């Protein structure tokens, strides 16, 4: 989040990077994700997901700034529509970004969310008022499941 303008970044909420490199990824309820690739729709809902507010992306990635402030975030994200259907197979080495295959739908998404961090509470405007810059849903296989 940014100060009005938008000005300086003032909040950077994420679950952190694990020691093995797992990036900003956290378990959520399996029931919180619903997908229908035939219709091009999907949704993700989660409540009270633990995050930290790092303030800035630089602090989140490299440290050097204030200690992160713990908090929780709840969110609903909805994907809908079928702008494009694409099949991808990338046989490049995994370290180079390859080693995966999938069937994807490029579409649009919207989100509403709330959070509590330190002295602050956050309540987004309704889902309908948000917009996506890029959105996709699909089915993917990688690693040991890569054909």
């Amino acid at each position, binding site marked *: 989040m940014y100060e009005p303008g938008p000005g300086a970044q003032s909040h950077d909420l994420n679950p952190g990077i*694990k020691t093995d490199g797992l990036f900003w990824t956290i378990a959520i309820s399996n029931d919180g994700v619903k997908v229908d690739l035939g219709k091009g729709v999907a949704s*993700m809902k989660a409540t009270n*997901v633990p995050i930290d507010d790092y303030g800035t*992306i630089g602090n989140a990635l490299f440290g050097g*700034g204030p200690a992160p402030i713990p908090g929780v975030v709840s969110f609903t*994200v909805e994907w809908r529509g079928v702008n494009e259907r694409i099949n991808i197979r990338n046989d490049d080495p995994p370290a*180079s970004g390859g080693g995966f295959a999938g069937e994807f739908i490029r579409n649009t998404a919207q989100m509403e969310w709330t959070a509590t961090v330190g002295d602050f509470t956050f309540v987004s405007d309704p889902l309908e008022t948000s917009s996506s810059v890029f959105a*996709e849903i699909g089915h993917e296989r*990688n690693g040991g499941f890569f054909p």
Partner: protein
Amino acid sequence: MNFRDIPMWESAIKARAHHHTHSHTGHTHFWQHAMSRRQFARTAAGTAVVGATLASGLWRSGLAKATGSNEPLPIPGGIILGGQTFHVFGPGLSGNPPDQEPSTITDFNGFVGLAYLNGMVTRTNMQTGEVDTLPFLFSDMRFMQGVFRDTDGRVQQGAFALV
């Protein structure tokens, strides 16, 4: 982004870091004008500040979360910034190819979703009562739901979010 693009990215980062080195306190830093919490142009900010802060007594690392058992493993590849690999790609973002991998976990077979989202949020300071309306820009939200091999080598079913 792929490996072909990394030199260009690193050049841009070095240029920005150089800019930062010659900046002064008391004004807005270049990264504070960046568009997104997640947009990878922003990550240049971290590269810019890291050199100046490694020797400080401030909080030192974003790699602070211990890995537990039964957790998924990160994808092997990712974005390289300042010589450090961040195990995530940004398909469709900042000129990155849209065909990059959206998942952040490996040994995975399942559904994925990714979106970069813009909107407005109301922030309330519960101590002072001050209320502000702030933009959230290019917020990167993803899910991965399906079968994965965990850190203990077991195949499991689960769902994960990149927040």
